[in-house]
């Protein structure tokens, strides 16, 4: 099974609506002791889809309403509203539910008091024996035709990008690090592993306490027989064990803070994507790799290439409009009209797609200019990739904070508070190990707090973050800490770790751009390479050449757990080659990292299969919020007592 999420979802779609599993006649036909066979109305295949609040986004992100309608799903209902449903005994019911205690409870009620003709039950994750017994007990009228587990307890964002199931509001209130969340994330990841048929070796970043728990949770789920040994044979066609790489966002706080410059990333950064839907003005635009081929071709393009491509797209549209337009209807003869009308649905789709992307790109352009992102983005890259000297960087930050007036302009250029905070945080992170007086973080913070320069002033929690992030976000600490006794070596380790973007960039650009058409190999706005790249490279190199001491640093940071099924199949020598990698970033993944993986998958010759995901998809604002929350929680110590007030607190501060 190649790691191809969209294909997985389309196969599952067929299972759900097109070609449902046989109704298990072998054992089921003898059921009619009392002759209570459900009377299926002949010919009628009208279906109702019964979902719960967990599976609703999964369905709506993968499948369109017209797709459902074309497969005779003429009604979609929430099982949470079970009590108020209208009885419609003509309809066959397809249930697509997460096996949560709540959904099972509702389903039991539904079966005891059925509203529909018959039931095909699908769960999007593993269901335990107790649950299935309860269901069997409640199906008094023997209306259930099939019970099937399919494994899709996660959201598919791109073909190679997933997020774990969103948490319910209630769970969110219960705090970030709660066990409930951990188990949810674990079962979501496990469902992903099952759907792509991978029983992986687990590698996680040793320094993360959260990941240690998560990995043990996942290993337990794989090893224990609660899943009816589903994991035992999934690798049977693989030569080498797949790898589940668990990373902690806190080990790379830089990547989500930077302004990205490729299409999908920019939309999320500057407008915001929620479950593949973007709101521009009062319009809701759907972004789908599956149904929008223009988007598929352009989602990873950098801004320069993107604008070219959109322009061509618009021109193509214009030529077609000339041939067939509604205005021409009155002047042209019937033959032309006929032609137009035949192409009409196609044409309409085309025109709405053009306007969608035009809309998006002009919105992006607006935001770039509004936020002075050309200057700001360059400076961000300059800071993190060491493109200029420390003093010249400081000078530029001062200019931004002072709202300076650029040479050719009349007006002072005012940068938003949020962007200023991000910039200072980047600086503080980058020069974390540079001591005063060279390090001017404090000066910058003072300028930020000056209401004459920055209005509205940064929130207290943002200032708190800037002052005390060091205690919580370790950047090059994994390296420096081991040598912390010799503090003199600190300066020499500057530029290592996260900030070797430049070094990798040459390597990266050279190889990647040979294949892509990018005519901007030295794009100043894309100098930073996420730490993920380094982690992956050394992981792969270490596997291939274990005694390469250069990569030792990285492998030290990863701990490995091997499920029994893997040991059984491959023996204990599990580290001899890599073909499939599933990456999960706890704390959130970025579209930029998904793009990196996309390029990687398409460049490597040996068909390395990588997919990536996280519990959420970050942009710089949401990441800054999360950082503020984390630092606040730790500093004010409210995390234990009032975890649900944290968000309010953030707004207050």
């Amino acid at each position: 099974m190649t790691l191809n999420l969209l294909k997985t979802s389309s196969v599952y779609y067929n299972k759900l609506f097109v070609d449902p599993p046989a109704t298990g006649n072998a054992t089921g036909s003898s059921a009619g002791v009392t002759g209570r066979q459900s009377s299926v109305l002949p010919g009628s295949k009208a279906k109702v889809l019964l979902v719960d609040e967990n599976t609703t986004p999964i369905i709506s992100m993968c499948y369109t309403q017209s797709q459902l309608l074309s497969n005779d799903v003429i009604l979609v209902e929430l099982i949470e509203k079970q009590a108020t449903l209208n009885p419609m005994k003509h309809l066959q019911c397809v249930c697509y539910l997460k096996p949560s205690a709540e959904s099972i409870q509702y389903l039991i009620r539904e079966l005891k008091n059925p509203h529909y003709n018959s039931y095909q039950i699908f769960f999007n994750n593993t269901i335990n024996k107790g649950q299935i017994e309860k269901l069997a007990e409640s199906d008094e009228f023997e209306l259930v035709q099939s019970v099937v587990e399919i494994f899709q307890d996660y959201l598919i964002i791109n073909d190679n990008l997933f997020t774990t199931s969103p948490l319910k509001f209630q769970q969110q209130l219960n705090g970030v690090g709660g066990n409930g969340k951990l188990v949810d994330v674990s079962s979501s990841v496990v469902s992903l592993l099952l759907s792509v048929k991978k029983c992986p070796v687990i590698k996680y970043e040793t320094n993360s306490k959260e990941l240690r728990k998560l990995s043990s949770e996942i290993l337990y789920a794989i090893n224990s027989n609660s899943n009816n040994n589903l994991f035992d044979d999934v690798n049977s066609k693989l030569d080498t064990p797949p790898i589940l790489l668990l990373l902690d966002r806190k080990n790379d706080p830089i990547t989500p803070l930077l302004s990205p410059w490729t299409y999908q990333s920019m939309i999320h950064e500057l407008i915001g994507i929620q479950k593949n839907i973007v709101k521009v003005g009062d319009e809701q635009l759907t972004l789908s790799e599956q149904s929008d081929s223009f988007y598929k071709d352009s989602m990873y393009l950098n801004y320069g290439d993107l604008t070219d491509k959109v322009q061509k797209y618009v021109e193509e549209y214009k030529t077609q409009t000339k041939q067939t337009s509604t205005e021409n209807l009155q002047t042209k003869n019937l033959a032309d009209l006929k032609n137009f009308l035949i192409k009409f649905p196609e044409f309409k789709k085309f025109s709405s797609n053009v306007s969608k992307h035009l809309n998006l790109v002009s919105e992006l352009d607006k935001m770039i200019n509004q936020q002075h992102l050309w200057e700001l983005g360059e400076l961000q890259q300059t800071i993190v990739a060491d493109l200029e000297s420390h003093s010249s960087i400081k000078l530029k930050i001062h200019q931004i904070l002072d709202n300076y007036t650029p040479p050719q302009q009349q007006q002072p250029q005012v940068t938003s508070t949020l962007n200023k905070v991000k910039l200072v945080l980047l600086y503080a992170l980058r020069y974390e190990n540079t001591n005063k007086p060279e390090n001017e973080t404090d000066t910058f913070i003072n300028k930020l707090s000056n209401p004459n320069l920055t209005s509205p002033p940064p929130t207290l929690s943002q200032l708190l973050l800037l002052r005390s992030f060091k205690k919580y976000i370790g950047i090059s600490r994994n390296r420096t800490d081991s040598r912390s006794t010799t503090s003199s070596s600190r300066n020499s380790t500057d530029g290592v770790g996260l900030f070797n973007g430049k070094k990798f960039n040459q390597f990266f650009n050279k190889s990647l751009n040979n294949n892509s058409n990018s005519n901007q190999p030295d794009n100043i706005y894309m100098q930073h390479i996420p730490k993920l790249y380094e982690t992956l490279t050394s992981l792969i190199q270490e596997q291939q050449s274990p005694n390469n001491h250069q990569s030792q640093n990285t492998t030290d940071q990863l701990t490995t757990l091997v499920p029994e099924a893997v040991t059984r199949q491959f023996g204990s020598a599990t580290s001899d080659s890599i073909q499939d990698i599933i990456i999960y970033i706890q704390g959130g993944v970025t579209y930029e990292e998904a793009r990196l993986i996309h390029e990687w998958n398409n460049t490597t010759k040996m068909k390395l299969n990588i997919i990536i995901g996280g519990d959420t998809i970050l942009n710089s604002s949401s990441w800054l919020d999360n950082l503020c929350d984390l630092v606040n929680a730790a500093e004010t110590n409210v995390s234990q007592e009032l975890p649900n007030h944290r968000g309010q607190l953030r707004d207050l501060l």
Partner: protein
Amino acid sequence: MSESNTPKRRVLGSNVPSGATPNEEVPSNHENVLLCPICSESMVSLSQLNRHIDDIHSGSDSGVLSSSSSPAPPASGSPVSPTPPLQKAPMNREFLNGSVSRWLKNNFENVVETSPLTSPQKRKTVKLDLLDKNKGFSLSESLTSPSTLNVFNDSDGTKEKDISKSPGKPPTASASRNNVNRLSRSHWQQPSSVSTDYCADQTCHRVLNIKNGKVNCRKCGLLYCNEHTYYKARLKNNDTIPKKPEILYEPSKEGTWARVCRSCYEGKPEDNEPLTNDLTSSFKKQRQIHNDQKELHRNKVTKRFIKLVNLHSDYYLSTKTNPDFWFSSSSWTVSRVLDEEKQIVGLENWQHDSQVQACPLCFSNFNFFTRRHHCRVCGRIVCDGSLNDKQIICSMDVPLNLFLNNKLAHLNFSPLVVQNMKELKEIPDDNEKFRIRCCNDCKDDLLHDWKSSNDSNRDVYSSSSEIFKLYDQLFLIKKNIHGLYPKYEKLIHSYQVSGDLDEINKLRIKLMSFLRDFESLIALFKKSFFVLTKQNVLKPSDDLSSDIQKLVNNIHQSTTTYLQETLINIKQLSNVLKEKEKNELKAHQQYVADAAVKNIESNNVGGSEEDSIQSPLSPSSLSPKPLPSQILEPDLTKRQIRELREELMVMSEQKFIIQGLIEKVTKSRKFDELAPLEENKTELDRNIQDLERKLGEFGF
């Protein structure tokens, strides 16, 4: 990977330095260590413990006790035996006896033990790496130094010297550390001694030399360049055929890593179906067990009910005539009735008041206000539900004739009851006799069969049934179209010069009539359930409830989309056919022209030829019969009928689309676009009428 080297560091979100290694820290004081109350295995989280108890201790308690008291076997290596779904899982000794920490630690030890650093075998697989600096990421050939070719190693331990100079030559056996695993090389393509060898990859085909490499794919044996053997697969010899060795894929530790070509890499059998797990049969098995039990129970309840009816009928009939039964000959007393009721339920089932402190159905405690009542069917003590706030009526003193009317009249009652059934049914509900106390559970059990036989007809009378009646018809037509369309499509695509048009025509006529039916059904559907608002917008009728409106909307949308798409598809197919016929006509004309030229030159055929070009006709029309411009009522040829019908179809379809456009334009209030559309529609209407008149009885 060795944990002791892990640098101590702080993790965001906690003030506690968490430098400890995983296996040390599982039982750390900073965390709440959870112990399984049954086997004292330690757990990381509460949910893990829950699952552990589900997995390990569910059901067979005895097994737990016995195995946990037995000495602990070594925790490593013993694979969990696969358990068939939904049977009681055999105890997993490893889980029972090792603690999680020990078990985790074991895994860590495995890792350490198998660490690449300690495995000399690993060191040799250096140059296979595609991400190796020289190869993976740089596409530059010049970086590929010849030395990488010279020391190429398979991980089976055979070290090949200078394969670029002597590919195909099996190395001496002594070089192999592990002879058993050595892959057979007898099938290898030998490098040509006279001519040049080329890479066997279709897209490459470059000359094989020192620079490009000259490598045998270990699977197929062909010679490739370096770049095209840059893939790895686990292989093994097929030993079952000793004479003709064959290399097989072996995706396990038994397989030997070896260099293969791309087609062998990609040809590796793959498992491309995402996992699904069908639990239906085990579900149905359990349902069977439960429902059988319930069935048994219900039979018991029904039998008791019959006896109760017999008893009370007897009581009622023999006491009704002389209400003053003190003086009657009958021996009926209230306490005798109660005694007999107890006998029917069974004394062992008749609960004692002291046994029960709360109602089992609503959990209210019994007291002066919430009184105890005996259900006469099951013997349990329940309340009457009058005081609980849960809206359950726990029990009722039900007049028996309520059961007898319709619902349970057919049961196997005593002859006395059967004879007097009519009278018994007519006993007024407020009669003090002929009633029993019955709890809610027993009522459900008694009425179960009646309910399930009535349930399926329940919404026949509801508002949705009309909708579904129409939908079912639509569905049926859709199914017919679905059956015909692929046939039609296939016929048209396989249609050849002078092929059988009759079949195609027949099919098209059928298809079109189905589509017409479909369209008129949609119209009927619209008429029945939609109303036109003042703004001229179609909208589900307000009489319908909101979810029925949703339903109606969805059905309308799905059916109209289907109709539109199918019409367009059929239209496109007609174009394909037309195109084919046109080509055929041209070919024919060419033939005719050639023949004409061959014939007498003075013969003027040119004019007629041009005529037929202007009106492209199908082959059957080649007989000189020009298409008349005016009405041709009686003698329409088959072809003309077909053409006219086709035209009519196109027109109707256009009308349909235009109507949709008009609706849309009206909705969005773009009235300037409305006028030309309306104009078009009128023109189309005119055309359609025209055509229908021409076709006359041959219309659909």
